[in-house]
């Protein structure tokens, strides 16, 4: 059975902290791994990763994929209260499987 597991499920930090969110997967027919940010409603796209070891960056966010160990991490540096959200990891197979998400709360 295809599985996508995120950890931690919940995380509370203070502004300025750096966080690392984890996503591990056991799937067949892997095509890509995606990270989304979900605030109130729809997930919004952050990164798509297809190759191992190549870091993708967008401002204070970065992500990397390890296809040998079957995991990805999402780093957020210098966190701000606006980073508070649920961060979803999804693995694209023939369809797309989501993890349960990590709920990040950034306190002022």
């Amino acid at each position: 059975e295809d599985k996508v597991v995120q950890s931690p499920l919940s995380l509370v930090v203070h502004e300025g902290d750096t966080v690392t969110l984890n996503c591990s997967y056991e799937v067949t027919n892997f095509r890509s791994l995606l990270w989304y940010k979900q605030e109130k409603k729809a997930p919004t796209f952050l990164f798509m990763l297809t190759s191992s070891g190549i870091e993708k960056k967008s401002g204070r966010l970065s992500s990397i994929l390890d296809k040998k160990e079957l995991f990805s991490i999402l780093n957020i540096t210098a966190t701000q209260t606006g980073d508070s959200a649920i961060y979803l990891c999804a693995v694209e197979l023939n369809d797309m499987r989501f993890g349960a998400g990590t709920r990040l709360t950034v306190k002022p």
Partner: protein
Amino acid sequence: EPEVTQTPSHQVTQMGQEVILRCVPISNHLYFYWYRQILGQKVEFLVSFYNNEISEKSEIFDDQFSVERPDGSNFTLKIRSTKLEDSAMYFCASSQDRNSGNTIYFGEGSWLTVV
């Protein structure tokens, strides 16, 4: 920026009623998807649609569900006889194609409450 739009944003329906959720995918996209998220739970894949037919569907997508592209712009999800457990946020999504590197864009969701 182009976006996926969904209507209604919120619908309350009685158990046993039929519901149609509507989506307008991004205009040059060819792949369309429905996902659902029960409150407090993970986003779950329902179905993908390409070239006017279902390409993949999950075990959740049983005979109560159907999808249709009735014209060149709309993509609908029909639930024939709603059950209480169908209460969820339903997300439509679209992508240009299935190649790696093509992002799947989500709509804002339709919140369905079955009473």
